[in-house]
């Protein structure tokens, strides 16, 4: 899409998320608060309620006065879940 923005994620995952890196071409202010969004996903296990998780992310966005353009709480959440699923698939294929 010409104006479509992209969100991706990488996770370090054993039985729960040990680290997460969300990347993309979105805009977010203030930039320093981006870590607060990534923090939401730490310690998560694979079994998640995507909707509830997105709500949690949105709460962090609202409470921290964060403005995002080109991505929503749902996009960050989806990207992390996809990264977990990818990791699980790769781990399985590796065996």
């Amino acid at each position, binding site marked *: 899409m*010409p*104006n479509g923005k992209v969100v991706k994620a990488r996770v370090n995952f054993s039985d729960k998320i040990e680290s997460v890196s969300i*990347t*993309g071409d979105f*805009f*977010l202010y203030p930039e320093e608060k981006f870590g607060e969004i990534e923090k939401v996903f730490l310690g998560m296990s694979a079994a998640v309620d995507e909707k509830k998780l997105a709500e949690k992310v949105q709460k962090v966005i609202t409470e921290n006065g964060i*403005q995002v*353009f080109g991505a929503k709480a749902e996009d960050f959440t989806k990207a992390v879940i996809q990264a977990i699923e990818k990791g699980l698939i790769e781990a399985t294929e590796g065996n």
Partner: protein
Amino acid sequence: MDDTQWRLVKLETRDAFMNMALDEAVSESVASGESMPTIRFYKWKPSAVSIGYFQSLKEEVDDNFAKEIGADIVRRRTGGGAVYHDNKGEITYSIIGQEKLFPKDLIESYKLICGWIINSLTLLDIEANFAPINDILVGGKKISGNAQTRRNGILLQHGTILYDLDVETMFRLLKVPKEKISDKMISDVKQRVTRVLDFKQVEEAELAQALVNGFTDGKNVYEEGWTAKELNRARELAQTKYATKEWNYMR
């Protein structure tokens, strides 16, 4: 904004790290009151890729190919996407001023500054329009991309105006696998992106002058260079931040 004095620093060419470092150094000097709000125009030598603050360098850029052709890669302070700054293909601008000089609403502030670019293109008989959040289109195709950050009460917006476009090099730098580059893809990009030369055969200097006129029209402007303090601070930032792996490979 009527009686605001603007400093204009005309087209100069520097490397990617100094270009980004100057944006930060000047943000500091404007914040401290040592410098006036500033309009600057610049090119990048060597040609370079700049990536958005939140992007992953390795995902967006083929850094091996960049090294091969001697192109720099730098992470911006601003969000947004990866941009190829072809030394022969574009002019970049930065606007640095106190937040209070601009609309509080983000899209309105993009619209205001992009309006100066649209004015500049009008001077070249090119009819452009603003496409929120941050693009300028001519006939539905993108001719300018822009990115903004506000920190410490200072607004920094920078962006490029495409004069010419080397699609092949751009494709190789911006991680499109060679196997995937088909004629269709190249024509797809050409459908979505346009450049000044598609509309008018002008010298780059004419574009540069049109930009100066479009940006300064109606403003109280004086022409000046950087202070010694700004240059020294920029050199320090270029060396300790913008040229470092820690900064650029942060994500």
